[in-house]
């Protein structure tokens, strides 16, 4: 995995590079090894839990591109997560019912068909939302993205064809040719590959000319405009790519759960994705993974201990924001050289 910051930063002590690289490698290895071990020892529950963690992390990787690298604080990424989920759900619904979608399009349970559609749909939605929202900035941007997500949420809630608030079940996991997606470990590996690809894409993207422009748009958009590059198209494209990654994660998440409902579109979920990104470390490649691991870990562990677990979750989050400024990834791996 290439580091998004330039090789030119020769000042960076090599020891620190080693530490960050080592921690990152270890994280990926653990994420891969634990579910495989759980599967071998007959604990499929942990495989499923790891899939859930992986997909939430992937959704947060998408958000991190907009929020961390692009400086666009989107409080509405649940819209893309949920839309991706609904694409998977609606495709499966029509494939199962043998009814056409919107009058003519046949349903499909082939993931190779559903994934591109999910990403396309999310990309288009983000294009529309981004084009309006990026006219604003600061708190206005936070709030207008929230407003758009709420619109989608209420729409899904009251649209009866696909279950409304009850949601839409996916009776059989959608299929990938040649693989048994029902098998927990197989499905986990699909998710894992998705996460790694999303992270690799982010890393590659941020090292490219586009990434350089996006970084400048975040740090100093006047400088970018003065150089002759309009910040808004750069941001908009980043916002769209970000939404597509989150949407793909949502499509997989719906398949994992066998279920999609408006709760995947709720503002709580947008908030949780933000929390995960911040918890892990904003604008850090591995931040979303660490954040998701912590969040899911706390939800699982505390939830079993006390019915007031959300109180302790809140206290923990508060502690992190007040005392661990760089996110947990910063604590583990040191300061990002040019964050």
């Amino acid at each position: 995995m290439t580091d998004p910051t330039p090789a030119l930063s020769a000042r960076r002590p090599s020891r620190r590079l080693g530490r960050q690289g080592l921690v990152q490698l270890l994280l990926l290895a653990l994420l891969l090894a634990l579910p495989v071990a759980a599967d071998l020892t007959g604990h499929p529950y942990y495989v499923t839990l790891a899939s859930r963690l992986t997909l939430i992390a992937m959704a947060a990787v998408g958000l991190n591109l907009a929020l961390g690298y692009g400086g666009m604080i989107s409080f509405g990424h649940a819209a893309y997560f949920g839309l991706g989920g609904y694409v998977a759900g609606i495709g499966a619904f029509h494939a199962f019912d043998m009814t056409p979608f919107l009058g003519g399009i046949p349903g499909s349970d082939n993931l190779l068909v559903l994934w591109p559609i999910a990403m396309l749909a999310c990309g288009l939605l983000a294009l529309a939302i981004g084009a309006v929202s990026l006219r604003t900035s600061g708190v206005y941007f936070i709030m207008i993205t929230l407003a758009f997500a709420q619109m989608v949420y209420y729409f899904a809630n009251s649209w009866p064809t696909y279950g409304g608030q009850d949601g839409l079940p996916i009776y059989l996991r959608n299929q990938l040719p040649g693989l048994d997606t029902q098998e927990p470990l197989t499905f986990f590996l699909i998710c894992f590959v998705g996460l790694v690809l999303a992270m690799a894409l982010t890393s590659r993207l941020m090292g490219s000319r586009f990434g350089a422009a996006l970084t400048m748009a975040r740090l100093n958009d006047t400088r970018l405009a003065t150089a002759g590059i309009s910040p808004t198209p750069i941001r908009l494209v980043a916002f769209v790519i970000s939404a597509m990654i989150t949407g793909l994660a949502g499509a997989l998440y719906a398949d994992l759960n066998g279920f999609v409902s408006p709760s995947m579109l709720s503002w709580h979920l947008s908030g949780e994705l933000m929390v995960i990104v911040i918890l892990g470390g904003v604008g850090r490649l591995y931040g979303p993974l660490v954040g998701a691991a912590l969040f899911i870990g706390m939800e699982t562990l505390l939830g079993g201990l006390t019915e007031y677990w959300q109180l302790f979750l809140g206290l923990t989050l508060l502690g992190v924001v007040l005392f661990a400024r760089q996110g947990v990834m910063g604590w583990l791996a040191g300061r990002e050289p040019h964050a």
Partner: protein
Amino acid sequence: MKQIARLGAGLLLAAGIATAHAEEDVRIGMITTLSGGGSHLGVDVRDAFLLAIEQSGREDIEVLVQDDARKPDLARSLANEFLQRDRVDIMTGIIWSNLAMAVVPSVVRQGTFYLSPNAGPSDLAGRMCHQNYFNVAYQNDNLHGAMGAWMREQGYQNPIILAPNYPAGTDALAGFKHLFEGEVAGELYTQLGQTDYAAEIAQIRASDADSLFFFLPGGMGISFMKQWAGSGVELPVFGAAFSFDEVLIKAVGEAAVGARNTSLWAHDLDNATNHAFVESFREAYGRTPTLYAAQGFDTANLILAALESAHPDDQDAFREALREADFDSVRGEFRFGPNHHPIQDVYVREVVMGEDGEPTNRLLGIAVEEIQDIYYPDCKM
């Protein structure tokens, strides 16, 4: 390396290890809503369920309880935890239809029994019914339909009806109209989670309706009733027990008095099982049970009764025993239809001011005898 050690420790902690349990023991997994809005329903189901298990004196039953925080994906994950890690024999506890739809189909398909202590979405009674799924509470339409029938009998001709715009809401109004069989003065839909009903109340006032039927569960019902009382509109009010449980009407106060509601149970229902239940629940928890508690209590007793004749590992025998429903229900007669949903009497209650100055429900009589849902013909079991 210090950081790596920290990380490793954290993940080890996260792993946790399932404890083994003896072969003949019975393990029940309960996923219910214990935190956030609407958690009093889950709390009552849990408390009554545990009370019944405790009263049975059986040491070989282990009940695991988890909070779903009313999130479908969390409920789904907890269900996996119960199925794959704890290997429970029976699951129960879900309050909300949308969570039930997320969890139940996959649980029963994987060969585990699920007994619903509250939610009864129509799909699970009809085309998605399953041999391992038993609903011990009601099908969602039961109480609304029963109120429709009763209001027709009472001579109301022109009710205006109101519900939130979501599947359970539209189902409720459809169920009401199905058994009311007449024309209604109007149908109003509110937003889910809406808190202010001034606009709807003004519309009701402006209509020529002779009565009001509404379905607004939980906090929505409280808000509506308070505002209704303040509005001075004088139509008689009807609803289902979901807006008039003992907890809710205490929060509404005097404003609830006079409202009539259908319920499958009443705390003053006259049978020995019920007397004992209400008394022991009050003693154990210091409050009057709601119908959710009654449903939780019945669910536990149904399981206990079935366990007398078979262990869940013997799936066919245990299923047969559940189907028999040979237990003393707090609501009197209880049996299952072909789709494993109850065929039961539905009662009418009226909210009255109790002797302690707090409103309470009083049984008026039976609204409809032996009501059955309308979805069972779709059920191919």
